[in-house]
């Protein structure tokens, strides 16, 4: 936990979200941001406030902060993407992990993920749907993510890639890609694999096990 960096970054958070403060948590060995988040729309109209905890994680800035909604203004259920304990599933794990792998900037993280998550909940209250849809739940969402964001749909091919990625035996640049279309360096698969390269091993392992079950 880089406490010095945290304090430096928190000054931006405090300026932008003044009702948030931080405490040190022995339980999580991490700084925890705590307080009220006011949500306004583009016209500056105030819609609602939420009490939140944002656990930055002991590997901060290289861990995904855990967001917990404590005011219980949003139902804590699957439909609202919140666990019974109040943990909010802000986005696909892979996307969040990728952001964390580069180092979290606290204020930007709140602006990009936390604030929109609650804005989306308010949108849902009005429209009974999310503004830009939602990922399917559980492993189905991961399949969707591989398809939509990584353009990988064939479970057999995905398993091959993940196995090679985990054993560090990906094709050499000038060898044919596993999909068989062209040289690996020129194939669109390489971009997708490069994205996955930045993710933690446990994430890739879970994906591998999930896709194996689909074969």
């Amino acid at each position, binding site marked *: 936990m880089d406490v010095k960096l945290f304090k430096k970054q928190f000054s931006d958070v405090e300026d932008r979200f003044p009702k948030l403060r931080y405490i040190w948590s022995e339980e999580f060995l991490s700084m925890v941001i705590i307080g009220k988040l006011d949500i306004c729309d583009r016209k500056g109209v105030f819609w609602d406030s939420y009490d939140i905890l944002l656990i930055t994680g002991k590997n901060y800035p290289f861990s995904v902060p855990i967001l917990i909604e404590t005011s219980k203004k949003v139902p804590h259920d699957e439909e609202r993407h919140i666990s019974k304990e109040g943990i909010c599933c802000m986005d696909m794990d892979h996307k969040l992990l990728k952001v964390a792998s580069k180092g979290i900037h606290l204020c930007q993280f709140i602006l990009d993920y936390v604030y929109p998550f609650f*804005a989306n909940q308010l949108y849902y209250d009005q429209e009974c749907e999310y503004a830009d849809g939602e990922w399917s739940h559980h492993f189905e969402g991961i399949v969707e993510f591989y398809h939509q964001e990584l353009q990988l749909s064939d479970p057999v091919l995905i398993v091959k890639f993940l196995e090679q990625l985990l054993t560090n035996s990906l094709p050499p640049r000038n060898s044919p890609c596993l999909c068989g279309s062209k040289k690996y360096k020129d194939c669109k698969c390489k971009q997708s694999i490069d994205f996955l390269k930045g993710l933690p091993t446990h994430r890739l392992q879970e994906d591998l096990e999930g896709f194996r079950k689909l074969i």
Partner: protein
Amino acid sequence: MNIYQDYLDNIQLAMRSGKKRKMYTESFDSFGGNIQKGLSAINLAQKISDDSLLPSLNELATEIGSTPNFNQKLGLHPDFSHLKGTNDTEKHYIISTFIDIKKSTDLFKKYLPEAVLIVNDTIQKAAIHTCLIFGGYIHRLQGDGLFVYYGGKNVTKEEGVKQALLSTSLFSYFVKNDLKMVLSQDGIEDINTRIGIDLGHDDDVIWHNAGIGEISEVTTCSLHTSLAPKMQAFATSNGIVIGDHVKQEMKTDHDLITPVCHRTGNESDRYIFEIRDENFRYTQHDFDWLKFLKRQDFIITDQDNRLSFQLPAPYEVRHSDNIRPIAIKSNPYYNF
């Protein structure tokens, strides 16, 4: 801030109608070619009632459950009015606040005196009203300044301190942001406030009747009442300086307070008052009122960092098209 909108509207109308060079065109036309009639109309339109807040500020007062006391009399704090005309004294704590409003003489270059009167009068009334809704007692009007007491027999020191800080912070925001925006459109730049606040404890404050007969007021004899205007002189433009006793009554927000010498770089500015023989040194602090204000439950900071007083908008006035551009960034997932 939206709570001052009606005061700003007043000021803007006076500025539009009382502009020196334009009065023979716009204002003249607006009032059927009769200048005197136009100015009279301004006066009538802009009259602020003596016993009510303007609606925008009244919304805040209602929300915080405040009923301003418009029956106050200068120099006669209601908790100590029994001292009027007597030689009695009483010791009781008080929070002394000196609000200096530096008004611009440039107003006279651009507007008719009648319009300047309305502008200045509205600013002063906004200050008075803000103090009143937070339980302030207007002790004295001093030229461009206001001397206000907070606290009393049924108010704790902690509560009184919070009331003083809230009202002065709101008024500072009004002058620094709202008023500045309106006046700068006409090139008027140099209106600002400087505020000093100090608390004298029971043993430090003697309430008494000063003067003779009707030429008198019930006032305080206290080092800390005297220090408030001295601290005001140390404040930056639109700044608030508080005494160490005020800091001690604040249970939170100590991170918003820094000794004045940290700003000035001059160690001799740390203490506003010293009695060396008694080893008494009294520290003065800069108070970050903007951050303090932003932390209040009733103040909302929007995405453009603008402050407003707002309650959650009722469902019928929420337009999902306005929240959609923010919500669209979120693609929630669920995997528990």
